């Protein structure tokens, strides 16, 4: 009986019910979409940093991260390759060989990171190819071709077609020197990277550096980027003792923390939104109840206990709130999903930020049902609480007081 009464009451005071409903709906949608955009921008920034070159995961010899030298190389890359070939969770993987060498163009010599990559595999693992701004990307048959970072090219005063000398030391400690023609120039937007790296087809670099069947590390990409941590953990179980698998969280820990700081501030802002919305719903609940003081007095006079009235009012509120929050959650999910699939393109954004190491041309949401679930629950709880105070207030009044209430 209480339920039908509650429903009738809701329908009776349409204006206020609709306002409360809309308010709660708006809150829910706002909150879900806000968090989705916030997470989305973080995912995007991290994705960018991860995908430009670092990659979602690495396998290297223990100690490589501390000392990236020839003493910490994967000595038998083929065995790791076979091992990884059996991993069904892996979508792509590829060995990389990184060394430090001198690049020299005419009078200018600059020490730089030289990466030996397998160009065709790298396409699916990093954005080196799409960062091309001049010339062409490497291919698997390239020999004396080098793919230069844009700022490194500037420092070397080198352009397409120029012959650049590379002088390093090979694994057997002999001097490795060769001439490379600049085939392409890339710009990722990460200044450090663009001014300090050059890439060469690994197969050819290996003959120069005597690094056949060697790798600095393997870069990994799983079928689902979200599973990275889980898969990295399980890889660590399977790998021989001297190797370790690392996820992007280990490789880019400062960036991850920077995003956490940003989230912290994001939640601070959203908590202010919450606060004000909490009050508004409370005000509406309060007003709603108080305009019905007479009716409540009547119910009390008819023998309803304060407990029953509490249940009635709370029931009313809950029906209203729950339905609006649920619909809000659905709308919020739909919006988040939409902008997840169709990021908002902001023309000029990429140009604006490319110089500062952020390569973003669009803003997308992060569609995560679990996060949405938690968001919804939090709002539902908060909105339900907001009615507690008005109900207590009304129950404090005596029957006669309520009857006389104007």
């Amino acid at each position: 009986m209480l339920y039908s009464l509650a429903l009738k009451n809701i329908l009776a005071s349409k204006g206020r019910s609709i306002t409360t409903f809309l308010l709660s709906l708006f809150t829910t949608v706002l909150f879900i979409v806000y968090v989705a955009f916030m997470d989305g921008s973080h995912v995007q920034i991290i994705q960018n940093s991860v995908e430009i070159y670092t990659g979602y995961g690495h396998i290297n010899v223990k100690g490589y991260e501390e000392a990236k030298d020839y003493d910490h190389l994967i000595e038998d890359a083929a065995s790791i390759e076979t091992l990884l070939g059996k991993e069904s969770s892996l979508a792509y993987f590829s060995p990389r060989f990184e060394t430090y060498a001198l690049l020299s163009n005419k009078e200018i010599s600059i020490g730089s990171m030289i990466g030996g990559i397998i160009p065709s595999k790298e396409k699916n693992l990093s954005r080196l190819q799409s960062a091309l701004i001049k010339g062409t990307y490497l291919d698997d048959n390239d020999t004396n071709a080098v793919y230069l970072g844009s700022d490194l090219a500037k420092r070397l005063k080198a352009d397409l077609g120029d012959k650049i000398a590379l002088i390093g030391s090979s694994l057997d400690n002999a001097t490795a020197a060769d001439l490379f023609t600049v085939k392409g120039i890339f710009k990722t937007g990460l200044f450090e990277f663009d001014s300090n790296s050059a890439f060469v087809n690994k197969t050819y670099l290996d003959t120069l550096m005597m690094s056949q069947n060697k790798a600095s590390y393997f870069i990994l990409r799983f079928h689902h980027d979200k599973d990275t941590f889980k898969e990295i953990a399980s890889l660590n179980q399977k790998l021989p003792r001297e190797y370790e698998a690392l996820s992007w969280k280990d490789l880019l820990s400062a960036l991850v923390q920077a995003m956490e700081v940003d989230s912290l501030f994001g939640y601070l802002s959203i908590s202010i939104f919450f606060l004000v919305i909490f009050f508004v719903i409370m005000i509406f609940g309060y007003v709603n109840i108080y305009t019905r003081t007479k009716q409540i007095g009547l119910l009390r006079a008819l023998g309803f206990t304060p407990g029953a009235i509490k249940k009635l009012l709370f029931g009313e509120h809950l029906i209203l709130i729950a339905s609006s929050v649920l619909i809000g959650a659905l709308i919020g999910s739909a919006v988040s999903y939409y902008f997840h699939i169709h990021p908002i393109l902001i023309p000029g954004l990429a140009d604006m930020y490319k110089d500062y190491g952020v390569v973003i041309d669009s803003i997308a949401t992060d569609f995560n049902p679990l996060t949405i679930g938690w968001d919804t629950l939090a709002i539902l709880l908060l909105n339900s609480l907001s009615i507690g105070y008005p109900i207590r207030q009304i129950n404090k009044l005596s029957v006669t007081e309520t009857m006389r209430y104007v």
Partner: protein
Amino acid sequence: MKYLFVWLISIVFVFADEADDIVKAVEKNLRGDYMYAQMRMIVTSKRGQRTVKVESWSQGDKKSFIKILYPKQDMGITFLKLDTQMWQYLPKIERIIKIPPSMMLQSWMGSDFTNDDMVKESSMSKDYDARLLLKKMPIVTIELIPKPNAAVVWGKIVTDIDISRKVPLKEVYYDDQMQEVRIMTFSDIRQAGSHILPMKMELQPLDPDKKQNRTQVFFEKVNYDNPIDPAYFTKQALKRFSN
């Protein structure tokens, strides 16, 4: 009492002077005015062993020219050092490259010596204050503490010297915290013309992850007694004497 004090001080001074003189004498003996040498360098690392043969011409400590004779792939690579600058010629790519500061601490030809070790005029007598620690004729132990403004990374060097033949036997290099960083030992001391020198040197780094590394240098031919053609110490020489 007073006399004892004066006497003690004078002993310290004498010792200090003596130590300096010893270091200078050893340097002078090893360097000579001109030096031509053929050396064999054996580098041992985790990756195995590697032999490099070089020919070198030098005049004092300012000028030197080095040519790689072996292994085949490195044959003809030449190095020229004038004062503090170093150039390298690579016959394979026919280019002369000036070694930039950023590469100075990279290993030289895969050895435990750095480019910096090759270039630096770091002279023990110039950059260090010498102090006699122990005298056990004919061997003295001398501690070398860098002078306040000397541009050297070592905290100190402790060296054993055979003063009768003016050759070092051992040098222990310490870092700033006075931890041992590398040890150099000298052996097979022989007469070479007007000079006596150790024909074998061995450098052993002590960093934990370089513990297996060794660099040994054997002098196969040494000549201190003929002046060297100044043509070696020009940039043109890099290419000209490459083969």
